[in-house]
């Protein structure tokens, strides 16, 4: 096959910045983010859409970047965990809640967890515990630190939580 036709120039918005790149057709969004843009937040856990550690937000939707072709984000908006902090590096309230509530253990699942939670809170500003658990069902934590993760998301939600730290 002709190698030339197997790459494409795409343009998209990445963490608030318009970018363009030539990318091979068979490269996943996850591979492109990590290998071409050196954004190492999204991780490959299973590679099959089961674990959620590769979760990023495309057009306001949480998706598994390991199952999405890079070429298919042409013209779209992609946000990774690196895009959450403010211009001076101040953490997003959700990130801060994860820190404050001890919702990070080994940390491998954390960027995916945060991106799923971010999409969830954007859609539902004050979710109940069941809604949080359902919204986060596609993210696995091998340290099994789910309670703290749910608490952190509750903390960062509009209604806050009873931990006294609130946001």
């Amino acid at each position, binding site marked *: *096959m002709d190698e030339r036709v197997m790459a494409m120039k795409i343009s998209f918005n990445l963490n608030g910045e318009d970018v363009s790149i030539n990318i091979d057709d068979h490269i996943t969004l996850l591979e492109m983010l990590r290998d071409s843009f050196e954004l190492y937040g999204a991780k490959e856990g299973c590679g099959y*859409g089961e674990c*959620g550690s590769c979760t990023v937000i495309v057009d306001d939707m949480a998706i598994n970047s390991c199952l999405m*072709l890079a070429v298919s984000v042409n013209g779209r908006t992609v946000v990774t965990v690196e895009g959450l902090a403010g211009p001076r590096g101040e953490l997003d309230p959700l990130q801060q809640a994860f820190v404050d509530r001890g919702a990070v253990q080994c940390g491998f699942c954390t960027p995916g967890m945060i991106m799923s939670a971010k999409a969830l809170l954007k859609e539902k500003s004050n979710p109940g515990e069941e809604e949080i658990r*359902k919204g986060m069902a*596609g993210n696995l934590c091998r340290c099994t630190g789910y309670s703290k993760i749910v608490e952190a998301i509750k903390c960062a939600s509009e209604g806050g939580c009873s931990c006294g730290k609130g946001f």
Partner: protein
Amino acid sequence: MRRFTYHEPDSLTGAIALLEENGAKAKLLAGGTDLIIEIKQEAKTPDHLVSLRSVPGLQDMEYSNRELSFGAMVTHRMIEKSELIREKFSLLSDAVDNLGSVQVRNVATIGGNLCSAAPSADTAAPVMALQATLVVKGPAGERRIPIEDFFKGPGKTALEPAEILCCISIPALPEGAASCYIKHARRKAMDLPLLGIAVIIVPDDNIVCREARIALTLAGPIPFRATKAEAFVTGKPLSRQIWEQAGEIAVSESNPRTSFRTTAEYRKKMICALIPRAAEVALQRINRAWMKG
């Protein structure tokens, strides 16, 4: 992942032409949540992927003239969020609520779910019970396939080479109808069903069953309607006892298999248990209960 050439045609005609041109070397790409995995595992080795992402109209959803129609690229998440579907076709909402994860539902499409024709497809039983018609387009033009003629075997459908499912058309349910789909699985998320049970009931004022539709997945190699069980309950009071008998009749119409997930015997027992349960949940949704006795 193995190399391939990605195509993103901006018209259905263009997509059909690409499929025709590349024959068996081409695969149609919808959400990709099955196909990309299969390519990674080298279970499928296409040289060309033809994405439907830029074909206009395939993400439209419309309810008019008592007919719900949606494009094949409508995602499970769009269905999940539709209040109209939840109100009028609640069994379809049931089917997508616990399919995969949010991440999967955000990209996986109903067209992909049906055309992959996995025996475990969650939308298959509801769409069967809803008597959907599938509008497909191919090199020979457009045709309409009733859903009961669509599934030909595990992974096999009535689609001809280079034919593309464009639209799923579902007639409104009769006034007063109630419905429910039960996905029987071990986990609430990220799991495939061991059994899928879709029930639609149309009761009359005296809680007699005027019409019933029962569709099953994983109770045989392809999704099917339990027509004998349907005939048995029609015209009879909506009582638990009668629906328990309907469950037994549905078992006699079934041919489930033993797989690594569970046994045929277990599936049969659960068909018996879940058909009355699905009917009961459907009735509760219209504030009805079983007729006593």
